């Protein structure tokens, strides 16, 4: 039962993820990504990680995807099936190839890393009755791993600033052109 569910959910997650890049309508992409997150959250539940599943939905589905949806809707107030839809998907041949190559390389590197790591087997009894997993997680996160935790938040901040800079630089000439 659990095995069958796992395979169904995995296929669902992958199909939804494929839907993210296959869909021409950005709102549908966001919805697909949402579906993918949900499948992954249920997979966490199957593995006995209730807390992780709740956080996955709370953070990704409840906060980040709402933000995505916001941005997509605000940028796309006009006709979603308009210009972007008529443009062929691989219009910018070399750049598309570069992006795809990078993605595939990262995917392969990730796969190699995962397959070469030996994960400690979790005793299901411990996973279920483990005393206060939330507390243990908090102690690990703010104790032993506090430096990586802080580094990750700094990285996110840097990304935000970087995106602001990039977006500003690209948009200024275009708006000036429109005004002229």
């Amino acid at each position, binding site marked *: 039962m659990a095995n069958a569910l796992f395979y169904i959910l995995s296929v669902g997650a992958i199909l939804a993820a494929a839907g993210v890049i296959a869909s021409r309508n950005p*709102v549908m992409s966001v919805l697909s990504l949402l579906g993918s997150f949900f499948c992954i959250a249920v997979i966490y539940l199957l593995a006995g990680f*209730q*807390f992780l599943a709740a956080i996955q*939905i*709370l953070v990704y589905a*409840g*906060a980040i995807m709402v933000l995505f949806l*916001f941005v997509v809707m*605000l940028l796309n107030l006009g006709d979603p099936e308009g210009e972007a839809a008529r443009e062929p998907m691989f219009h910018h041949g070399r750049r598309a190839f570069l992006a795809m190559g990078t993605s595939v390389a990262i995917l392969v590197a990730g796969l190699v890393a995962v397959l070469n790591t030996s994960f400690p087997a979790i005793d299901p009894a411990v996973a279920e009755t483990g005393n206060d997993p*939330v507390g243990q997680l908090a102690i690990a996160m703010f104790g032993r791993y506090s430096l990586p935790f802080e580094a990750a938040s700094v990285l996110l901040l840097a990304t935000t600033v970087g995106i602001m800079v990039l977006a500003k630089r690209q948009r200024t000439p275009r708006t000036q052109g429109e005004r002229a």
Partner: protein
Amino acid sequence: MNEILVWVIKTGFIFGGLVGTAAAMSLAERKFSAWMQYRIGPNRVGPWGLLQPIADGVKFMFKEELIPDGANKWVFQLAPLLAAMPAMMTIAVIPFAGRVELFGQDFGNLSITDLDIGALYVLAIGGLAIYGVILGGWASNSKYSLLGGLRASAQMISYELSLILTILAVIAMTGDLDLRAIVEAQNTGGVWNVLEWNIWYQPLGFMLFVVATFAETNRHPFDFAECEPELVGGFHTEYSAMRFALFFIGEYCAMTVMACLTVTLFLGGPSVPFWAAAPWFVGFAAFLVKAGFFLFLFIWVRWTLPRFRFDQLMHLGWKVFLPLSLLNLLATGVAILFRGGA
């Protein structure tokens, strides 16, 4: 007794109660508003208009359903379901009463399930209600709907933060994410069990929470999603028939769940004042009375106060509520530290 059968009975009872409450609320809203305005209210269908919700339901089912031409049909049809579902899912972890024994059978605790992470589950699933609103507004392909949807979602995001932070203070006090444990910590026995309710230890948190539930359920005085003069009906302007009704059922269900959550977190859940060892049905009745008060409060406020302005709402949410709830959490943390652990 068969475990699955017990689950089916409990789920049917609680879920039926939720939907029944939502239907009753639609009548109560009209009745109370009528009384507050010296009107009579619905009184034609059944005695005192009691059968009005059923008549409304039948009417909604037989109405023609319109889908606007430019609408994204798939999302348009999905949105009302997304709006109604989260509230119906979160009711599952609300601990209504203790161990139920009926006809010599042990039914276990009166809640569909007691999750270890109940409070997180409520927050995670409850936060999804926003999708129904925002997608309904977008898929309608109408300016009014889109603006209503955007407003509602901005508001829900802003107040969800305060809501989560006030719940966190309660969780920190109890040291457990299980709603059942939070309820039990507020009723440890003894005559003065009223004094164990979290409302006495979290007065600020309680006030912030109650106001935030109004904003979170898009209720008056924060119902900007449906500002009649500016946005017609807001995100559900283009909806008709049963899908329109689903938005309303969702709203009333969300109100019911929020009332139950307020009672659970701050008023001891099924704890009966001065009677710590009350049997389950007395506790259940106490729970219903307390939750009923908050449901009445929703209606009372709606027909008493005028609507805020949107910038006032954002100002209140980000510059008043967020700092206050952070302060509340900080004060709770300091208090726990000085008392020596939770």
